[in-house]
């Protein structure tokens, strides 16, 4: 496979096109503008359509419409823009529509900044209004971002549910070698779509259920899909966990920074490993619960969001500590080394 040196945003966009995405609706926001920019050019070449919507809210309703007629569709934004898209995404979840959303996070709250941050773990895994979750995938390299985007379209169709790719400037702006795998199209049932009802009763795509009993049933049906995701779709990576006495928990590029720190700590004789969730929802609970370690140090570019899921996973059996940088500050391997060394020397339990 030929390797190309590509920016993360462009690799994400190209992977989407190769997975059959022909429609993109979005609204510009740094640091992900290269995604709509690439799509505006590339979709034209493959006979697709690109619309720069009048707002994020409009874009999230345009993807609703496209998915309702059975098209592969994507939108992308960054933290405050994702807040605006939450309404439309909840409608997509309620109407069981397969859509792919890319969130290249930035620091918050409010308008915040544009440098790398993981401040949207909560609004990604536990999103806007209504009982629902997107399936959330968090790549740590540009190669993995491209691979996960291709998977995202299949997962969206498989579960008829929004799938989110969660990155930040380190994924969106960085360049690394990428080899696109040959995408193998799969058949999905599209008999529910609203694409002309000649000779059959009309289909209705809707999230409005005024009868509480029917809406309750609908909620249960949606959560049955999430139970299946928890059984079949959990993904994670472990690194040097075989003989680890201490465990770092980190997702995305932060996990790579941890790996560099772990190499140094291992040289000092501190047996530390790493668990990197790749699916943030469904969360890889079992691997954390089964890790026989003295403590877990959760490291995030946030004030501590994923740590709640790590704590729920270990059910109080393993102490979970926290180290975070925020506002767009990226932790260095050295400061992670210092933190772990300090905890090791102080005999933290």
């Amino acid at each position, binding site marked *: 496979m030929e390797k190309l*040196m590509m920016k993360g945003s462009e690799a994400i966009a190209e992977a989407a096109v190769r997975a059959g995405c022909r429609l993109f609706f979005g609204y510009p926001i740094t640091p992900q503008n290269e995604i709509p920019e690439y799509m505006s050019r590339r979709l034209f070449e493959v006979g697709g359509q690109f619309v720069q919507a009048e707002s994020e809210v409009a874009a999230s309703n345009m993807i609703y419409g496209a998915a309702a007629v059975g098209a592969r569709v994507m939108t992308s934004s960054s933290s405050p823009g994702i807040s605006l898209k939450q309404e439309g995404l909840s409608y997509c979840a309620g109407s069981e529509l397969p859509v792919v959303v890319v969130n290249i996070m930035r620091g918050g709250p409010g308008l915040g900044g*544009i440098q790398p941050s993981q401040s949207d773990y909560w609004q990604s895994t536990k999103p806007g209004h209504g009982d629902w979750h997107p399936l959330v995938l968090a790549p740590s390299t540009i190669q993995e971002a491209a691979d996960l985007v291709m998977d995202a379209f299949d997962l969206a169709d498989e579960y008829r549910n929004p799938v989110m790719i969660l990155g930040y400037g380190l994924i969106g*702006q*960085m*360049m690394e*070698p990428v080899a696109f795998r040959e995408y193998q199209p799969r058949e999905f049932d599209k008999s529910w779509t609203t694409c002309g009802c000649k000779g059959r009763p009309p289909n209705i795509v809707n999230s409005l259920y005024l009868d509480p009993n029917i809406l309750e049933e609908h909620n249960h049906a949606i959560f049955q899909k999430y139970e299946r995701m928890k059984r079949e779709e959990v993904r994670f990576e472990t690194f040097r966990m075989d003989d680890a006495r201490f465990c770092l928990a980190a997702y995305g*590029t932060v996990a790579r920074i941890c790996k560099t720190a772990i190499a140094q700590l291992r040289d000092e004789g501190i047996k530390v490993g790493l668990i990197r969730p790749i699916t943030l929802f469904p969360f890889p609970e079992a691997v954390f619960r089964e890790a026989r370690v003295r403590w877990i140090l959760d490291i995030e570019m946030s004030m501590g969001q994923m740590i709640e899921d790590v704590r729920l996973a270990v059910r109080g059996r393993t102490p979970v500590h926290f180290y975070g940088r925020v506002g767009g500050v990226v932790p260095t391997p050295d400061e992670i080394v210092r933190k772990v060394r300090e905890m090791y020397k102080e005999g933290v339990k």
Partner: protein
Amino acid sequence: MQYEVVFAGFGGQGVMLIGQLLANAAMMQGKEACWMPSYGPEMRGGTANCTVVVSDEPIGSPVVPAPGAAVVMNRPSMDKFEPMLKPGGLLVVNSSLIDRKASRTDIDVIYVDANHLAEHTIKSPRSANMVALGAYIGRTNAATPEIVKEAMAKKMTNKARFLPANKAALDLGISVSREQE
């Protein structure tokens, strides 16, 4: 072996491009490579930089607080990155635009009159970035000159007429750095 290098200058000097050329060349040589730009609101003539990591192994942290090398094309970049270099690191200084010497004594320094050489020897004033890249390549083994030239040809397909001048600028930079060894 891992190489980390920051390319820094003001907007328009082509520091992002030479970083991408090195990353591409490293990839073409079968190595792992990663290019990370500074991004954000900048004004024309403002500062720009990118970090390139080249390694035989999968790259851990793409963030490098103490890089092994820096190629600085203007004075603000030198002031910013000289103190950050790791001890024993390499500093390539564009002496055409930087009027001071390095203040650290625990690093290797190459002074290259990049703008002057590009303008008067190569007759291509905008190739100063290639002279500086050559000076870096000439001292390290991050990528071979031949592969960097291949990467140049691939990357600059729509600017093919500038290719001979850029290749000559790279060679000139390499010879300058070897003279100072």
